[in-house]
């Protein structure tokens, strides 16, 4: 089966003053793949995500969206967000924040339908009117996911978004993501320290170490390999 490449990292390198974070990183990600990005703290996972999101300019090489930049829509789910507990912002409103295409301040009928659909898909319909500041950790992560998905992205980045969740909630969230990954051919980049979860859900991995990068089918990723990477 041939799949379409949607993201290509070409000899990518980022160097902070006197400190190369990563160099000569080559990676091609195809539509519908589920990648886990692993490596110890400080090795450059977040820097890589920021570079992919064009928030950081690479020192060398380039990030290419294929076939054209406009063809790749990114949804991003971080671990934390600075949301005040007292904000009068319901989960439904929070999801709708990402809809910035319509010119009027209020939501159009089709935009309300989009929100309704994504709340159903993420199992948040009954919580739609709950203030996001009062939602549990798992509910919030689902709301972040729903917001990222409301504009129907084809590339979803989960940046340690399950790190603070309990095992049950974590599994629930990733089950949902993998279901969307398979049903909608949604490409997923899952940044994580949780190797068993990475092995359970993803098809390929990219490991960042101070010495360089390693990638391949997920079967090749073991906890020992990550530990070795940490201690070399």
């Amino acid at each position, binding site marked *: 089966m041939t799949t379409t490449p949607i993201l290509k990292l070409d000899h990518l390198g980022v160097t902070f003053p006197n400190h190369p974070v990563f160099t000569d990183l080559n990676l091609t990600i195809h539509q519908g793949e589920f990648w886990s990005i692993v490596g110890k703290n400080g090795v450059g996972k977040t820097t890589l995500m920021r570079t992919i*999101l*064009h*928030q950081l300019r690479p020192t060398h090489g380039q990030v290419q969206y294929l076939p054209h930049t406009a063809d790749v829509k*990114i949804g*991003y789910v*971080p671990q934390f*967000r*600075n*949301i*005040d507990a*007292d*904000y*009068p*912002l*319901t989960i439904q*409103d*929070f999801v709708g*924040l*990402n*809809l*910035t295409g*319509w010119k009027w*301040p209020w939501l159009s009928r089709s935009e309300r339908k989009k929100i309704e659909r994504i709340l159903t898909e993420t199992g948040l319909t009954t919580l739609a*009117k709950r*203030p996001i500041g009062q939602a549990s950790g798992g509910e919030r992560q689902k709301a972040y996911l729903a*917001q990222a998905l409301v504009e129907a992205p084809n590339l979803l980045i989960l940046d340690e978004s399950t790190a603070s969740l309990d095992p049950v909630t974590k599994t629930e969230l990733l089950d949902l993501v993998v279901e969307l990954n398979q049903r909608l051919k949604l490409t997923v980049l899952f940044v994580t320290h949780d190797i068993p979860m990475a092995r359970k859900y993803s098809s390929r991995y990219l490991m960042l170490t101070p010495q360089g990068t390693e990638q391949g089918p997920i079967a090749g990723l073991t906890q020992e390999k990550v530990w070795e990477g940490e201690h070399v």
Partner: protein
Amino acid sequence: MFNYEFMRNAFAAGTIIAIICGIMGVFVIARNMSFLTHTLSEIGFSGAAFGVFAGWAPLNGMLLFTVVSSVIVGQLSARSERREAATSAISALFIGLGILFLSLANKNASYATSILFGSVIGISASDVRQMLWLSILVLIVVFVIYRFLKFDSFDHTGARVKGLWTNTLSITFLVLVALSVSVAAQIVGSLLIFILLTLPAATAKYFAHTVSGMMILAIGLALIGVWAGLTLSYVTNYPVSFFIAAIEAIFYFIALGWQRLQTAE
């Protein structure tokens, strides 16, 4: 009370101010910019004093100083870790300049008092018209950028990832606050302006369930404060800013108490 033209003007101006402050206050609170708003009001005092010194209308001096400085403040305080220190430094500098300009203009203490704490009597029909035009300008810009401003104010991380022009939005918002400060300072004075730009919205936050609900409630609370303040000031002959400040502070403390009760349940 409405037989007097100055009271009719004061009520018209107060209504405009309450609407603008209710709307802008929601974003000021969401963006945690209360302190920055306070600084802009002090810069407004300095601008008004400069206007007096230069022989202009105080509002024009305020507009010049607050708009220019809002851009500078926005740049200096882009990094949150230095926001408070940068804001304090600018605030101190502008209060000093305000005092200097008043001294150079040879104006007495009562003139300074009216700039700092506002005046009901001094508002003419042409002032009201100027405030109305400025307010319409602020409302149009807010209307046009509403979705982006709401996204950036309530979920800055999401807005940045979306690729929204968050820095430009931030500076645009500060300029809008500067315009609102200049408008609102006409009644409550430059030092108490942050009352109307922060307290009604901060109170509304505890009762509203949506952002638009917060906005409507904040406008309502600001209107009650301004109208009741003007009436009480007319009846008692005490300063209007005292009554507005007291009413808005009471609303805020009631909201805090209510919130505490809700949390305890």
